[in-house]
């Protein structure tokens, strides 16, 4: 059974329809790349899956299922814990590195100090950040570099022990070395987590994704094995986009 099943999903901001009848499945422990030009609805897709669109007063129609369960039957806070989201620009909350890491955990339930410390350390290790920050956990998170901040955001999400990790152009503001580190982290973590990777960098999808979906103007044009999409796509528009004819 697929991890996530999206069925006839549409999303509206007021009169503006940004997703149009999307049907898509995400398999367990794969990286599904999502590519397409600006305003294709890629970010909205992620925000529909964890119901974050609600805080911006959008509305949706259609069904989304997580492990076969309708996401509207799951308490919204549980849903967002199970489906983590990493944003395009790393946003660290004001406060220390440790405070950033423990924020979500403390909301979740009462947690013993030792357990909290262990979880934070494990998550930082998994995000390949532990060595760089282990001696400065109580310094302000904003003192980290951009790449470190993004890995902190990933670690913060990992600490919640999610099932699916969605990334919204996670490397758009980063240098090639930081990007490589994050991609390496992702490929490692794929053994445990399911990934949805929205990217405006087609090469990144080619490097990391098992399958790739191409979106245009709120529509899913096609989804297939990454090799297939990049060598022999079914739709001419996909081909044009990948070859850089637009977007």
């Amino acid at each position: 059974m697929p991890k996530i099943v999206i069925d006839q999903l549409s999303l509206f901001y007021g009169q503006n329809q940004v997703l149009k009848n999307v049907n898509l499945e995400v398999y367990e422990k794969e990286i599904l790349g999502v590519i397409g030009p600006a305003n294709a609805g890629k970010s909205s897709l992620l925000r529909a899956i964890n119901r974050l669109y609600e805080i911006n007063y959008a509305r949706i129609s259609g069904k989304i299922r997580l492990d076969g369960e309708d996401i509207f039957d799951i308490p919204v806070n549980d849903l967002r814990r199970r489906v983590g989201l990493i944003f395009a620009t790393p946003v660290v909350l004001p406060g220390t590195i440790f405070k950033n890491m423990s924020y979500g955990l403390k909301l979740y339930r009462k947690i013993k100090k030792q357990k909290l410390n262990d979880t934070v350390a494990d998550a930082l290790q998994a995000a390949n950040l532990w060595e760089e920050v282990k001696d400065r956990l109580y310094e302000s998170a904003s003192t980290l570099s951009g790449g470190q901040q993004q890995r902190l955001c990933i670690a913060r999400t990992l600490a919640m022990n999610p099932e699916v990790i969605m990334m919204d152009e996670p490397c758009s503001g980063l240098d090639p070395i930081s990007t490589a580190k994050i991609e390496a982290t992702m490929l490692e973590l794929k053994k445990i987590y399911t990934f949805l990777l929205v990217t405006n960098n087609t090469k990144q999808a080619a490097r990391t994704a098992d399958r790739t979906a191409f979106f245009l103007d709120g529509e899913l044009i096609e989804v297939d094995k990454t090799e297939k999409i990049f060598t022999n796509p079914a739709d001419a528009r996909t081909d044009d986009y990948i070859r850089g004819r637009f977007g």
Partner: protein
Amino acid sequence: MTFRIGPRTSQIIAHIILLLMTIVTVIVLFFIIGYVFKNGFAQLSLEFLTDRTREMGKEGGILPSIIGTLFITVLAIIIATPLGVGSAVYLVEYTRGGLLRKIISFGADCLAGVPSIIFGLFGFIFFVIQLKLGWSILSGSLTLAVMIIPTIIRTSEEAIKAVPQSYREISYSLGGGKLDTILKVVLPTSLPGILTGVILGIGRAIGETAAVIFTAGSSLNMPTSVFSSTRTLAVHFYILAREGISMPKAYGTATVLIIIILFVNLVAYRLMHRFMAKYY
């Protein structure tokens, strides 16, 4: 024969006139403070600040008024802050556009423009007479609280609006609820801005006369409870000056009053400045 002035000349003339008028404005405003300080500083002494008031203010110090002002202001802030900040949170986090938002904003804007004598009338008839609280610290603080709520709402609203939306998204995407997000992310982040509003409110409360003279009265006794009548510094100063009881004491009281208010406003300004530098 007409005399025409070229654009360059008129520019220079305008510049000079504007500069002169600005200088006059600033000098006048500074002069007011300077004049009070010049005559008042000589009156300041430990005795003046810590002695009871005697012979209606002709003799002695201003301790009862300092304590009365402190009580009234603190109580007013304790009442007004939750109401003001709560309103601001509701405005920013729970409404978007719509009639409700308009009504709440309109209420705050209008209340902000109501003159203090109207608050005095209202506090007198409602708190002092209807609720039978009498001329007391409690009546005075309740009246002042109503008066400073709009200041706190407006400043807090701006501060909460300045919290980046991405912080909220992060909190939600880590499984935080709305209340968690407000209490643990939005309020702590906007705290300096909110404090600015609270401090501006304190400044307004300390300097107020018309609204407190008819609600807290003008007793010179040391206040013993929230039901005691008291005379705030501003009221004491007003009575000393208007009834000509003692000009030296009036200058001394005014100096204390202005120093406190300038200090309070300066703190508010510094806080606001640091907050703005961070988020704008």
